[in-house]
């Protein structure tokens, strides 16, 4: 809890200090600058970020402008976790232990082209925080399907209409990382900043490889009203499409429990990328979400015992 110096009776749970300054170049309604801002609020200034190709390479500004107050290393698309490993190794060699190394990559840069490097870094027990900001397609190149594109979604490379190509769900990246050996995993959403910051802080406090799956709405790519970005993000959680939970020491725990899930249709109909879905398609998505959510609930339940 942080006291508001002006209004003494307010208690802020989100730090006031911003390490991301105004003037970034994200699209209206983009979730990523929010996610980056919350991340840095949670981690504080003793942080080094490295990031690959993607929207994140553009948003902090083009040379010589720069909108973050922490050091940042840019690199090619598939090597986020490998560069993080190198930064960590050099800091360790210099005896610097209190700096958090963050690899920050999009969904394509993580579940597809960057998966090998990520798996290797986890395997080496690299002490770093990997954050995947998930806007569910290659958005910087203009809405191409990634391994994290959800079932039924239109992209420029997965035609919709009668020819839905993406009939399976996203790659289960959190499960893959847990199997790979992360010491902490958590999902966060820009619609729940307090939970976001708490989860990042929890991750920061643990030594070893940590993986964060961050939900990051993309109005341009999802064909939706930028003003509804937060509403859609909240619905993703409330429908069970993007549950907020954490994993540590073999146990799963909901960080935002949803007592009664809303129908996924409420989430889907706000976005143009799903507009071609027939009622039968929507039922298929609902069934998929039901199954996955129930599986997760069972894991959480097992952790309570």
């Amino acid at each position: 809890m942080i006291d508001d110096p002006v209004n003494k009776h307010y208690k802020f749970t989100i730090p006031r200090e911003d390490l991301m300054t105004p003037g970034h170049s994200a699209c209206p309604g983009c979730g990523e600058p929010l996610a980056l801002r919350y991340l840095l609020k949670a981690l504080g200034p003793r942080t080094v970020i490295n990031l690959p190709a993607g929207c994140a390479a553009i948003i902090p500004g083009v040379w010589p402008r720069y909108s973050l107050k922490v050091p940042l290393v840019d690199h090619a698309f598939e090597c986020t976790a490998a560069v993080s490993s190198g930064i960590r190794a050099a800091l360790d060699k210099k005896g610097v232990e209190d700096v958090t190394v963050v690899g920050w990559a999009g969904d394509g840069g993580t579940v597809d082209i960057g998966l090998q490097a990520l798996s290797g870094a986890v395997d080496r027990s690299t002490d770093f925080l990997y954050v995947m900001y998930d806007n569910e397609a290659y958005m910087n190149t203009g809405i191409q399907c990634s391994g994290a594109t959800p079932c039924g979604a239109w992209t420029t490379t997965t035609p919709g209409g009668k020819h839905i190509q993406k009939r399976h769900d996203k790659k289960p990246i959190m499960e893959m990382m847990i199997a790979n050996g992360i010491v902490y995993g958590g999902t966060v959403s820009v619609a729940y900043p307090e939970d976001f910051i708490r989860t990042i802080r929890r991750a920061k406090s643990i030594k070893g490889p940590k993986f964060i799956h961050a939900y990051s709405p993309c109005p341009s790519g999802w064909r939706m009203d930028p003003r509804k970005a937060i509403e859609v993000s909240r619905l993703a959680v409330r429908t069970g499409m993007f549950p907020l939970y954490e994993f540590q020491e073999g146990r799963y725990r909901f960080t935002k429990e949803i007592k009664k899930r809303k129908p996924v249709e409420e989430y889907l109909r706000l976005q143009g990328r799903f507009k071609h879905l027939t009622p039968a398609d929507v039922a298929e998505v609902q069934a998929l979400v039901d199954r996955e959510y129930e599986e997760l609930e069972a894991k959480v339940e097992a952790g309570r015992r």
Partner: protein
Amino acid sequence: MIEMMTANYAAAHGARLARADVVAVYPITPQTSISEKCAEMVEKGEMDAKFMMMESEHSAMSALIGASYVGARTFTATSSHGLALMHEMLMWAVGARRPIVMPVAARTIGGPWNIWGEHQDVITERDVGWLQIFCENNQEVLDTVLMAYRVAEDPEVMLPVMVIEDGFILSHTVDSVDVPDQEAVDRYLPPFRPEHPVSIERPMRHGGVVMPDWWTEFRHRIYLSQEVARTKLLEAEEAFQKEFGRSYGGMMELYRCDDADAVLVVAGSAAGTAKEVADKLREEGKKVGVAKLRVFRPFPAQEVHHLGKKVRTVGVFDRSYTFGDGGAMFNEVRSALHGQRNNMKNYIGGLGGRDVTVKNIEWIFEDLLKIASSGKVDRTVEWVALKDGSGRW
């Protein structure tokens, strides 16, 4: 202290003596024993480095770029497909101005598979911006690793360096190597202190997007640094000579070239064979010389130019090929001799582990002497010692 070792071990000892901070590796033949030796020395406490086993060569180079940004002296080694897989990050290391030093045990690139030596892998990377130094023997490999760090980390250079050793011929062949004392190396090679490291106190972005209005200027700075590297390489070798009493002839070593009727330009271990053959032919009264192309990037155009003024007939031996054209070294030598009336011929051979024998080189010199006396070049490119002799026709 004189010890018997392979060029791979010599390279690893170079990294140890240079006090490399971070070593990131991925195995590939014939480089692997460089990585293994580093691991062994780290385990025994002889080498004070963070050692990382990566999941690919691409990741090894990526990790070193990250580590170097923080201010670590970085080391890896590779060959062949590993170098090809690194290609993207080789270019990134240059644009990021990271003074990484990397021995390459030069080898074929498939397919089909062939694990043995030739220069195709490193020649393919000639345009990426790394300095490239070819070594003739195991001693030169160790010494060049030390010189490479000194040049790479010079604030006016800040570019990565490939130290090239012929796969198997050097990488796996034991020879005597004078391993310098740590104190002497410390005198020669100051610690790495980059001007703009990753720093919490002075946060900045390293490698952010550069728009068309500045990109050319950034690239031009790299071009200038390659130019400056010529002088820096010579200075580094001069200082090395003072400290350790050994030197390797600068950018291009001229061996018995002064009054030669014909010279052969050659890089790597075959230069040693060529020198032997030149000695033998000289005894027979045949005036031939060897120009050992030691530094390929930056290309020693001036040195080649002067050689061409001195010797009329110039042959170039390429242990690689540029399909659709002659060998890369030949083309660059020819370009440096532009406007001079030299007789020039390209010889391609020693590929995929095939030995470059004394006989091969003798044949090449005889061919060059024929050209020198007749003034006629029968053909521009000749593949040497093909089984059916078809390379001659």
